[in-house]
């Protein structure tokens, strides 16, 4: 996803010279072509992210489209008040790009993880949150962010292989249905979409036919689709590389819990209010440890499905 952002920012700058790429002292090597070809669109404002966000708001209010790029916790929680006041309150057209979201920096420890970023960004008025699931979707997100007027946060994780499904057009706020189903719906985001696909495949053996939804935009969330799924399916399972507090699952929950026609039980899967204290360069091992592997998802759905059948009998 990171490489896809690097090539996408090059492409959007070529299209629109108002685009700026502002970094907090990372990515100089990856961005070397960009720096060579668009030297006046590139700023390294140093390891001072709070100020970087404020400066970007000033740029945006002067007609520029700044894309701020650094490691996720440093462009979200570290400078949260700048995002709230300078960007969102001023309605400034700033694009925040967090790289290595969730536990992507698997060996670096919790300072470099972001398991709360979606929660805090969701709470900000005017903020759009996009969480792409593969490299192609990163490019689509970057182009969409460039065209969209307003604060946007793009949450990059690791996935480097393109997902194979009929994806249609990318639209902010409109989820993609990777696979249709009948019994249950898995609503996933980021790297969890691939895991959801794997789990849905495995569940065929149990005769459980699952929807797999790629919820690439977490805010504004695709409310219409979630409502539809809650009427159709007996179980909805959200899964995210994020805390179970305030993220995708919370967003889904707040919709269906207030929807009178909802028939689905909801299971929210994510990091359960913990710091991730596992180190591994293989993120799947971390997911395994924290109950977020495809296997865990399969088990969770089996359990839920049994329960919802049980309910149905009475």
């Amino acid at each position, binding site marked *: 996803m990171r490489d896809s952002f690097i090539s996408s920012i090059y492409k959007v700058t070529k299209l629109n010279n108002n685009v700026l790429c502002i970094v907090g002292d990372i990515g100089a090597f990856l961005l070397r072509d960009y720096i060579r070809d668009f030297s006046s669109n590139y700023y390294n404002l140093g390891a001072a992210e*709070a100020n970087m*966000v*404020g*400066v970007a708001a*000033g740029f945006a*209010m002067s007609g520029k489209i700044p894309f701020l790029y650094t490691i996720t916790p440093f462009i979200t929680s570290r400078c949260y008040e700048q995002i709230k006041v300078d960007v969102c309150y001023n309605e400034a057209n700033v694009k925040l790009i967090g790289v290595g979201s969730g536990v992507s920096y698997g060996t670096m420890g919790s300072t470099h993880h972001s398991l709360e970023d979606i929660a805090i960004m969701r709470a900000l008025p005017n903020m759009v949150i996009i969480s792409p699931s593969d490299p192609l979707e990163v490019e689509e997100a970057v182009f969409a962010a460039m065209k969209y007027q307003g604060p946007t946060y793009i949450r990059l994780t690791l996935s480097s292989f393109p997902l194979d499904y009929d994806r249609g057009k990318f639209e902010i706020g409109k989820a993609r249905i990777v696979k249709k189903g009948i019994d249950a719906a898995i609503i996933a985001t980021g790297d969890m979409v691939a895991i959801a696909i794997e789990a849905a495949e495995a569940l065929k053996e149990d005769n459980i036919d699952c929807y797999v939804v790629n919820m690439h935009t977490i805010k504004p969330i695709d409310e219409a689709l979630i409502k539809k799924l809650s009427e159709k399916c007996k179980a909805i399972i959200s899964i995210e590389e994020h805390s179970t507090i305030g993220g995708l699952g919370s967003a889904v929950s707040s919709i269906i819990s207030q929807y009178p026609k909802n028939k689905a039980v909801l299971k929210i899967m994510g990091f359960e209010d913990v710091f991730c204290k596992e180190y591994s360069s293989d993120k799947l091992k971390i997911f395994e440890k924290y109950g977020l592997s495809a296997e865990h998802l399969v088990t969770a759905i089996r359990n839920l499905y049994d329960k919802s059948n049980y309910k149905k009998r009475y």
Partner: protein
Amino acid sequence: MKKDKNIVLELELKTTQVRKEILEMIVGAKGTHIASAFSIVDVLVYLYDKILNINPQDPNNPKRDKFVLSKGHGCAALYVILANHGFFPKRILESYCGQGSILGGHPDSTRIPGVEASTGSLGHGFSVAVGFALANKINKIKSKVYCLVGDGECNEGTIWEASMVAAHHKLDNLVLIVDDNKLMISGFAKDILNPLSFSDKFHAFGWNTTEIDGHNFSDLINVFNKVPIKNSKPTVIIANTVKGKGISYMENKKEWYSMLPNEEQMETALKELNGKIEMLKMHLQK
């Protein structure tokens, strides 16, 4: 000579009238931050009257000069001055801090014509101003960006982050004014977090530095004629000011950070301000 003297007298008259309007507006709304607004009145009146290239009829002109009030709690001064310059009708001042008003206790850029950035939480506006100045450089716009921060506000780390960026990018289109009124909410800055010398600090950060009496118009005229200095460095003006300036019992008293005068105190305040207004008018007629 007489002309110069008259200019100063006229400015003094104007600032006294502005102080009176601020006082009446805040007291009328049971608002706060009288003293913080009073310490910046002279600098703001001078900037808006004599320095800034702005047009209230075209407040979003990309070539305008920009002023950012980073210490947003001084906004009562800004509101009165913006209204006086016609950015919005003066009657709107009467709605200050009331339901449905565009004018709150801290300025909102999305609703108030002439307010360049929403501020209130300290240490934000200056970074945005640096962004404005950088954008002007790359857009090849020759206009200037002015920003005013409080001395207490300089406790915030972002002030120094932004200072580094401004110097590194040679923002000689940027002028920062430090409203050095020496007082914070709980007392004197030197007793809370001693700033030592702002001039030394900014000098070490690569800025042109200059220090003035922020209530003295000869100083203000002198310094704003010289800045920004075109030497590839940003310029800071340390304005030595008095919190609560203009009302004797408020000056230099920490209590007046948030207090409102009672009826008797209000009477005294108006008497002092009206007295000064009459005296200045008399001098001007001579």
